[in-house]
């Protein structure tokens, strides 16, 4: 009898039930889309943010100390402290190696620079780096990395071309330096240091927007030879671009001192891609290295990701509230319209909870149909957002199904509250005798 009454009511009130289903479809589709995007967007947003360059730098611990204490980035005690080039590829072997997207070693030094016609331009900063290094890892995997992947924005204002990885006879010059000294792509420069000389051709003029605009950039091998450093493969620092998880209290505590963590906290922190955890792991493989997050970039990534997530949560909450209000109005209108019938059921001996159950089951069934349709529509919306904003598909998160189910249940339940309260207060005498 119960289900017969439910079925007949759904058919008889199909107009209102369709409106309720439509409301649920809208709410659920929006929630589904937002949650799928929210859960799948972290890496995508991170990758988008990689255009802003490296988010971790690794320096020799003593050079880093000079920087921390005295703000020195070059000179005695900084430029003479070096990391080992052979350690650079070990970055891909750390626990979060797959999150290390790109990296490049940098060797900073100074050289007397003169033009091809002998005009001395001065003692200018020179940096050597991997431009586009093709390397084989100890695991047998190969990778391509280098500064070119970390300075994608140089492409926009580049005059001339990028250096080749093994192009030891060419350099690139920063825009500021080039404009100051009238250097153009194709010009020849002579670099000399402590009696060692290299004649190079300017292959490109780049615009960085930072300190690099005042530097000359060459291959790592050429600058190492020019600097005449003792021993093989010295580098000043390593720039790393890594996918990271926004910091939380645990990450901040660990960043202060990982030894302050309990074993469980340490394990959680170590196995999460916090920037501090990745820095810690980098230090484990780079001898004498101190890895530090480039705060501005790391924090921007975290802030943008957090704000994006917050925005999507807000949209989900607002759409749920909107759905609950709309459902509330529709159910209340339906119950008022049926007050005589429901009053009759009370007069025939139905308890309040039995009538409330009748109405709730009707609404829940309608909501369920709307929810299923809304879920699939939401997946479609998520893909549209993925293609439009990130140019790729959004992976469907299975965990969205129970979350949407719970939201749908409570939205429908909360939306039914005013109607249920009306039902509870409904007196059969008032609707059956027309008083």
């Amino acid at each position, binding site marked *: 009898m119960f289900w017969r*009454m439910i079925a007949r009511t759904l058919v*008889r009130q199909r107009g209102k039930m369709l409106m309720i289903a439509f409301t649920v479809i809208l709410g659920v589709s929006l929630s589904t889309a937002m949650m799928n995007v929210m859960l799948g967007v972290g890496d995508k947003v991170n990758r988008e943010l990689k255009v802003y360059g490296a988010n971790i730098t690794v320096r020799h611990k003593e050079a880093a100390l000079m920087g921390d204490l005295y703000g020195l980035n070059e000179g005695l005690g900084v430029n003479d402290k070096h990391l080992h080039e052979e350690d650079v590829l070990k970055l891909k072997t750390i626990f979060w190696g797959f999150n290390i997207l790109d990296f490049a070693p940098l060797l900073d030094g100074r050289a007397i620079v003169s033009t091809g016609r002998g005009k001395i331009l001065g003692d200018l900063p020179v940096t050597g780096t991997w431009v586009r290094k093709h390397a084989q890892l100890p695991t047998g995997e190969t990778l391509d990395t280098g500064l070119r992947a970390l300075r994608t924005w140089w492409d926009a204002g580049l005059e001339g071309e990028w250096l080749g990885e093994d192009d030891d006879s060419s350099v690139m010059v920063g825009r500021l330096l080039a404009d100051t000294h009238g250097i153009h792509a194709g010009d020849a420069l002579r670099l000399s240091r402590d009696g060692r000389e290299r004649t190079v051709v300017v292959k490109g003029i780049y615009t960085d927007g930072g300190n690099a605009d005042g530097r000359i950039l060459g291959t790592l091998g050429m600058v190492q030879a020019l600097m005449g450093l003792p021993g093989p493969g010295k580098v000043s620092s390593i720039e790393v671009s890594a996918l990271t998880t926004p910091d939380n209290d645990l990450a901040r505590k660990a960043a202060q001192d990982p030894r302050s963590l309990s074993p469980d906290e340490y394990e959680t922190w170590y196995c999460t891609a916090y920037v501090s955890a990745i820095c810690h792991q980098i230090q484990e493989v780079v001898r004498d290295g101190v890895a530090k997050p480039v705060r501005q970039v790391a924090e921007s990534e975290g802030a943008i990701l957090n704000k994006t997530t917050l925005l999507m949560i807000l949209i989900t909450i607002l759409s749920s509230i909107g759905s609950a209000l709309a459902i509330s109005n529709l159910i209340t209108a339906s119950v008022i319209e049926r007050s005589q019938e429901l009053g009759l059921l009370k*007069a*025939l001996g*139905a*308890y309040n909870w039995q009538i409330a159950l009748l109405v709730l089951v009707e609404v829940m069934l309608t909501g369920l149909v709307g929810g299923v349709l809304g879920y699939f529509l939401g997946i479609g919306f998520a893909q549209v957002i993925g293609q439009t904003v990130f140019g790729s598909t959004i992976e469907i998160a299975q965990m969205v199904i129970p979350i949407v189910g719970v939201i749908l249940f409570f939205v429908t339940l909360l939306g039914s509250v005013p109607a249920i309260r009306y039902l509870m207060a409904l007196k059969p*005498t008032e609707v*059956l005798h027309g008083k």
Partner: protein
Amino acid sequence: MSDTILELKNVSKIYGSMGKGPSPSLRALSDINLTVNAGDWLSIMGPSGSGKTTMINIIGCMDTPSEGSVILDGVDISREGAASLTRIRRDKIGLIFQQFHLISYLTAVENVMVAQYYHSMPDEEEALEALAKVGLKDRARHLPAQLSGGEQQRVCIARALINSPQILLGDEPTGNLDEENEGIVVDIFRRLHDEGVTIIVVTHDPEVGDVAQRKIVLEHGKIIQDIDQSATFGQLSHLIPTGHTAHP
């Protein structure tokens, strides 16, 4: 047949503040005393506003008195809560309404089964038998909109009878019927009375009021007449039109 099934002792119903607030109160029933024996057929008459509906609401466990007590089948129901009144109403009272109040999307037999469902278990065979008693077995699968007013009222009576209530309460049961259907309904009441069902009917119609075994007249919330019609009871068969009967 002389056991008391219902007793109203000094029952009053006062709407409003009962003299405790600024708004005036309305005394719908005033110090009513009434005893109904099992198997009685009682009609309650009176002008509009005399308190008939209030009285039937209280007897039907849909309202409670402000003062006094109502003893139904030996239980004082005047201070019971809503859930308890619902249970008592379900088990002991059968309700017949002037406007029938059938559920429009259920067939005649399903309307009867709704009362079964909230009482115990729906039983279609039993529901069909109840419809047969009021002469509507062949109309069991029709929706209310496909039935005449008289037929709808007979479905309403079948629904009221399905759980074998101790009291059948009718609120203007013939108020919306023509004379022919009025006769059929009264005939059903007569048969039910013969079977020992206690019937209490509120009516404006003197002819329906007069066929009862006993008639009380209310005015301004008070019983002004209590007439034993046993002497003339059963002699008003003119209400049953020739050739029409509710017997199956």
